């Protein structure tokens, strides 16, 4: 299932549009070269705050759509929630503002060699990377179902897009304002059982990813989880974005999410040990 990794570019992009979508913002950027080489599951890293910004680090966002033939050249779209200073600045951009973009970054989602029944699970803005994935999977003959969940309807992203991209779309909100009530994981088993799911892709909060991974393991279904680790560089040079991943050789390594991820086979992630160096990790005191 390995995909080849495109070489990233650094591009001075330009805002094409910024619009509110529920609780999120959808930002479209002309960034020639990036859309052309992007594969589903990759992200872009945006410089924030303008020229004399005190915010030094780029912000990472999953690529929502990539259109190599946009009116203004290759265009990428992201979806984001305002959290702190960086996303606040992004939410105040105007058409034609310059945005410095590095991408596409990260290892794309692995794509199965044969057609399978795939289930795509998105929590909140975590839905963003799943639509281009759905499209790709369908061109490979896969059957694609999708569950989108969030706390409220306003935080459910991509409902319209989901109907287009998936053969079946299940919506779940904690406040029951849209679709089923509860968390996505409350409804996972029913969907999997009914559909005969063979492969899961998930993107959303850590808690959700962990629950899905554990569930998938009990079912013997592989689950690809796209994680959000804090990233200082996004390109693999700083070692801030690591998490404990068990390799095929059985050895746990502190592995960079920005280059080896951001999506990992759920079973390889030591979910309970994130934020620690698990005993026996390659190079830990215990192991050496």
């Amino acid at each position: 299932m390995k995909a080849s990794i495109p070489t990233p570019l650094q591009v001075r992009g330009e805002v094409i549009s910024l619009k509110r979508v529920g609780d999120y913002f959808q930002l479209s950027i002309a960034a020639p070269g990036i859309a052309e080489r992007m594969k589903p599951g990759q992200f872009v890293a945006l410089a924030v705050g303008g020229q004399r910004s005190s915010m030094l680090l780029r912000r990472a966002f999953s690529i929502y759509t990539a259109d190599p033939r946009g009116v203004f050249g290759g265009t990428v779209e992201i979806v984001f929630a305002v959290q702190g200073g960086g996303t606040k600045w992004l939410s105040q951009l105007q058409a034609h503002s310059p945005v410095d973009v590095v991408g596409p970054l990260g290892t794309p989602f692995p794509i199965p060699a044969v057609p399978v029944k795939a289930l795509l699970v998105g929590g909140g803005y975590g839905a963003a990377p799943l639509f281009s994935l759905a499209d790709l999977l369908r061109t490979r003959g896969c059957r694609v179902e999708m569950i989108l969940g969030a706390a409220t309807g306003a935080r459910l992203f991509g409902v319209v897009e989901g109907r287009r991209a998936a053969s079946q779309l299940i919506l779940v909100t904690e406040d029951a304002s849209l679709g089923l009530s509860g968390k996505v994981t409350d409804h996972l088993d029913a969907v999997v059982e009914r559909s005969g799911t063979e492969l899961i892709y998930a993107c959303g909060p850590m808690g959700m990813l962990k629950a899905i991974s554990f569930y998938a393991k009990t079912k013997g279904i592989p689950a690809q989880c796209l994680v959000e680790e804090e990233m200082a560089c996004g390109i693999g040079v700083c070692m801030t974005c690591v998490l404990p991943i068990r390799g095929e050789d059985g050895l746990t390594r502190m592995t960079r999410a920005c280059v080896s991820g951001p999506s990992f086979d759920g079973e390889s992630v030591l979910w309970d040990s994130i934020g620690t160096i698990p005993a026996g990790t390659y190079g830990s005191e215990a192991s050496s």
Partner: protein
Amino acid sequence: MTFKVISKHPAEEKSNIDLHTSLGSLSLPYPVLTASGCAGSGKELSNFFDLSKIGAVVTKSIMANPRSGRATPRMAETPSGMLNSIGLQGPGVEAFMNDDVPWLSKMGARIIVSIAGNSVEEFGRTAARVRRAGAVVSAIEINISCPNVSNRGLVFACAPQSASEVVNTVRRAVGPQFPIFAKLSPDVTDIVEIARACVDAGATGLAMINTLLGMVIDTKTLKPKVAGITGGLSGPAIRPVGVRAVWQVHSALPKVPIIGMGGIMSGEDAFEYVLAGASAVSVGTASFHDPSAAIRIQNELNHLLVHHGFDSLKEAIGFGHRQTEEKEDRS
């Protein structure tokens, strides 16, 4: 040389000058290097520019054995800076020399290997292993900002005695000619004293500054933001401290070559370090913001040198001192 004025005729400027620099026995065609720990093993940056077109790649500090580094979170953004607490994650010197160094060499990069250790002995052993690779490695940078396990975890760089022991041991391990640079920590009362100890112990030159010890408390969780509690502060926030350190050491030891670093984001910033006395500069955190920072900064530095009428980089090294009668004290 006489007083330089800002050229009024940029159109008449030569566009390139001699950027070659000498750091004792180490000669480099260009003065901009990557900073240790901010360029990985070089591979990733090579997506963005040709590694052979900068002075050298300084690799992440390597230790004798593989290291997992610290738990996450490992970073916090701070005003015009960042805090990191990586804990020297790496594959150990053996794997590093077998895998990363040959690749860098194939790319035509000059390689400066940064080494670290928990003990004086580990520094020596690691240096010897690096040296065995021969001419493929141009120099060693000694990261003495590591805790000394056998002395209550005190950082080697914080006392002249321990700094000197490390440098001396590395010198003996690599032989008398090989260029070695001691990388100094700014977290000391008197950086000149440490610098002198390192030079006396056999350092070819000095690299400075490493990060400042800092800390961020997350006002949401009410806990330290990085798992290591404290971390290293880098980026433009610390540049005035780095420039001051280079200035002080160059004043005291004008013949000792210095690799200057700390918050260099632009050619102007690099120029500041050169004027303060640096013979070369390293670019660290800037690469996180702009992956091609090193080569961009080198080009900008070139233009500034031309603009100010310098004929070569060498002429500008320490030029700020020649412009000033020294009367240093502080408020």
